[in-house]
């Protein structure tokens, strides 16, 4: 009863709230499109002329350091969300430099990349404590039922972080959003194509609904 009252009491005052500050993390497995989404959000806010802040590649572990863009503002319905966008290296449980060699990277560079990627993933996990809310970016063409995704989402819930699951790559034929919904039915899900920008407005709407 008390809980219900305090929840409604807070909700009532939320109506009058006009500005909110938060640190928004992009998390997910490697190559799910986190940096592509980060670039899209930054360009939407700073304008088309804004340079690509985050490097993207078809080879896994292109992002090997936690990167942050401060002072971004999203506005909707008279409300302003003032946020820092944190792009993180893809979460994984294994890194083999030989996989990079198979993708055409020279042995020394592959070893360096693996070393940096390893450090990046560890930092990524540590950074979970520093973000207020998270967009869990999943590649909707892949099976979402794996331990990395389950552990990541479980961790966020255990740490009481707000989250939205972003089913990315909907422009691809093999995209299967329903499967993600089936595996993670308890969370808000937004489907987008970070490559084409389709669905981004819906994502902003949900960010305001869930994180404001």
């Amino acid at each position, binding site marked *: 009863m008390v809980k219900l009252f305090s929840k409604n009491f807070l909700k009532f005052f939320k109506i009058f709230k006009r500005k909110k500050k938060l640190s928004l993390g992009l998390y997910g497995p490697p190559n799910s499109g986190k940096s592509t989404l980060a670039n899209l959000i930054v360009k939407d806010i700073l304008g088309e002329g804004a340079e690509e802040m985050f490097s993207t590649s078809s080879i896994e572990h292109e992002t090997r350091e936690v990167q942050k863009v401060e002072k971004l503002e999203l506005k909707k319905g008279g409300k302003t969300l003032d946020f820092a966008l944190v792009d993180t290296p893809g979460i994984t*449980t294994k890194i083999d430099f030989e996989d990079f060699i198979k993708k055409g990277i020279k042995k020394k560079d592959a070893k360096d990349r693996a070393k940096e990627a*390893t450090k990046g993933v560890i930092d990524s*996990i540590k950074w979970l404590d520093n973000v207020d809310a998270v967009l869990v970016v999943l590649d909707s063409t892949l099976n979402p039922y794996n331990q990395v995704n389950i*552990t990541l989402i479980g961790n966020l819930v255990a740490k009481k972080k707000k989250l939205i699951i972003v089913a990315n790559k909907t422009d691809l034929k093999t995209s299967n959003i329903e499967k993600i919904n089936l595996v993670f039915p308890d969370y808000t899900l937004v489907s987008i194509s970070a490559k084409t920008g389709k669905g981004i407005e819906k994502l902003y709407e949900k960010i305001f609904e869930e994180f404001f």
Partner: protein
Amino acid sequence: MGLQVLSYNLIKTLRPHERINKILSSVKNGDVVMIEGKLSYEEENELVSRALASISGRFTGVEVAYLKSKFPKRFIDKLKDSIIELLAKDRIGITVVGPSKIIKEIKMNPQKLEVLFK
């Protein structure tokens, strides 16, 4: 390469860092470890972080999977599951951890785990 099956009682008598040490040392030796029950999310984080930190030429990380048969349709089954979960908590299910150098993939579905070797 071998298979080690660790009981819940053995795992729970160990302190969290000893638990991770035990699993990780076996996996680094090339063994697949099967544990009765579930590691907490903090333990999984520690396991993954420490596994990644020990990556070298021979060791490339771990494959982890947890099987917890769930998704009952009938209300009575759901109720039974909730009661068991309340009483047994992290004792339910099976966790599999193995070296990614020899495991290609662990295919997970809610009813079974398929460990595919390279």
